[in-house]
């Protein structure tokens, strides 16, 4: 039996999820007595691929071509499906990232595979992989299994741990890619990167501001704390609707789903749609002047006070700590 893991990279750099997916796949492979193969697709990715070996993979397939520099739904889908067929892999793991979520269904149809999407836990019971995932905005957790011969799982980023072990001997095998113009019916021609802070979906720490921040001119308080912590800036929908910040930063049901180690909610009430996007954070801190705000129900620690008074002091205290 073979398991295939898809390691996401952009611009020649692995995403953290590449290591998380590889290691989660390795854990399952060990439990099933299966062989793990990791697939990397891109331009000039052969040189970075050995980094995956520290996460338990011994064979790495590399599909390398200048035309693969950017992601393409149709092309990556074809390569993934062909690699799975070639290897006769029956279990495929991908990240539930913007790339993985887009890629999985395209390959799934080619492989007649069911997908368990956005999994937050995996286990093996009587030889079957059981996936746990949140549904209904995190109000319910389901356990499910896939009944097709080929099974695909997308894993929510930042949930599965990736701990470097001793690197093993790894075999890197280049696979040939047969691409025609027709394969490029979708083609990425460029990427606009928001420079500066990390993205909310990838950050270890997020400092989020809500309507309680009173206006865009006060977000420098959020930004200062974020920069002190090397954190991303998040916002509630109320802030985006008011035009104070861009939608890219929005956390929640109509924004992004995040699971950082630390989430600091400032002047956010904790509406269910906001919580849907951040309840899997490991530690939640709330600063809100209303001690009855729902956000305190889900927070691990809170200060029931004024953000304008607390944020500057908090930034200074943390500076003292990290400055040490």
């Amino acid at each position, binding site marked *: 039996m073979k398991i295939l893991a898809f390691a996401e990279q952009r611009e020649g750099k692995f995403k953290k999820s590449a290591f998380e997916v590889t290691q989660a796949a390795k854990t399952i492979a060990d439990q099933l007595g299966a062989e793990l193969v990791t697939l990397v697709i891109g331009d000039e990715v052969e040189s970075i691929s050995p980094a995956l070996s520290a996460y338990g993979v011994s064979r790495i397939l590399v599909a390398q071509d200048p035309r693969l520099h950017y992601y393409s739904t149709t092309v990556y889908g074809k390569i993934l499906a062909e690699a799975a067929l070639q290897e006769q892999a029956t279990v495929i793991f991908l990240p539930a990232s913007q790339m993985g979520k887009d890629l999985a269904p395209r390959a799934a149809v080619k492989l007649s595979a*069911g997908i368990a999407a956005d999994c937050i836990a995996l286990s093996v019971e009587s030889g079957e992989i059981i996936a746990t995932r949140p549904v209904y905005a995190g109000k*319910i957790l389901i356990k499910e299994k896939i009944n097709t011969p080929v099974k695909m799982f997308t894993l929510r980023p930042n949930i599965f741990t990736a701990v470097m072990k001793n690197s093993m001997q790894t075999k890197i095998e280049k696979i040939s890619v047969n691409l025609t113009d027709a394969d490029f019916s979708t083609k990425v021609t460029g990427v606009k990167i928001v420079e500066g802070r990390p993205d909310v979906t990838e950050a270890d720490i997020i400092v989020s501001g809500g309507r309680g921040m009173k206006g865009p001119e006060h977000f420098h308080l959020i930004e200062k704390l974020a920069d002190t912590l090397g954190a991303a800036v998040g916002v509630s929908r109320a802030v985006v609707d008011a035009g104070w910040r861009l939608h890219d930063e929005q956390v929640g049901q109509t924004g992004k789903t995040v699971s950082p180690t630390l989430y600091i909610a400032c002047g956010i009430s904790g509406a269910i749609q906001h919580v849907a996007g951040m309840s899997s954070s*490991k530690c939640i801190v709330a600063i809100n002047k209303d001690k009855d705000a729902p956000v305190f129900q889900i927070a691990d620690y809170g200060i029931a006070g004024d953000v304008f008074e607390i944020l500057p002091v908090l930034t200074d*205290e943390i500076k003292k700590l990290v400055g040490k």
Partner: protein
Amino acid sequence: MKIVACINHVPDTEAKVKVGGDGKTIDKASINFILNPYDEFGIEAALQLKEKNGGETVALSLGGDTHKETLRKALAMGIDKAILLKDDSVRDSFSVAKALADELKTLSPDFILFGKQSIDYSDEQVPGLVAEFMGIPSVSCVVKMNLQDKKVICEREIEGGHEIVEATYPLVISAQKGLNEPRYPSLKGIMASKTKPIEEHKPASVSNVVEVLSMQMPASKQAGKIVGTDSSAVPEMVRLLHEEAKVI
């Protein structure tokens, strides 16, 4: 130009969902259902495509009779025609997508619009599956789209930025918030929607591939510690984060 918007009928996000008696589906009684919020962006995009290029717009939904409410809302917003793939069974994304794709093949649209995700199961799979079943390209999580001759230039949201994607059509688009501002149904639209027909078709039988084994409420979190009410609590908060939670 033929434009189809695929729309879903889902529990209101405010709804207090509870696990039903079978332990595998939710208890639907006393829950308010709405048009999936993301699908409003798809409907609006369909209407704008028609306004610019002419043609016909169709709303398509697979589900029970209750999905008619949602189809009526699409008609009230200005969609020309509605089709209900009537089926009450519980389906997974694969089975929904297969049935939608079968119907869509008979309609041969130039554009098929979806929401980015259904807010119930949040699979974000149906659009990509439909596209692959139909053998056409797709762009997901789209926040901008422009038609230039035979090409469609889109921007899709990715981590920390946007990808600029060039695609050909027939094309599947899944809409993210930001693509447009969905219009409210006008009074005239609401009146007209009452007389517009909703065609009922029968989809192919269910072919679920994913099996829900159990459903449970997540362990409810203990409300946390309120450390204080003003900035004098900050040092203690930082200490707790550093020493107890070990997150900074």
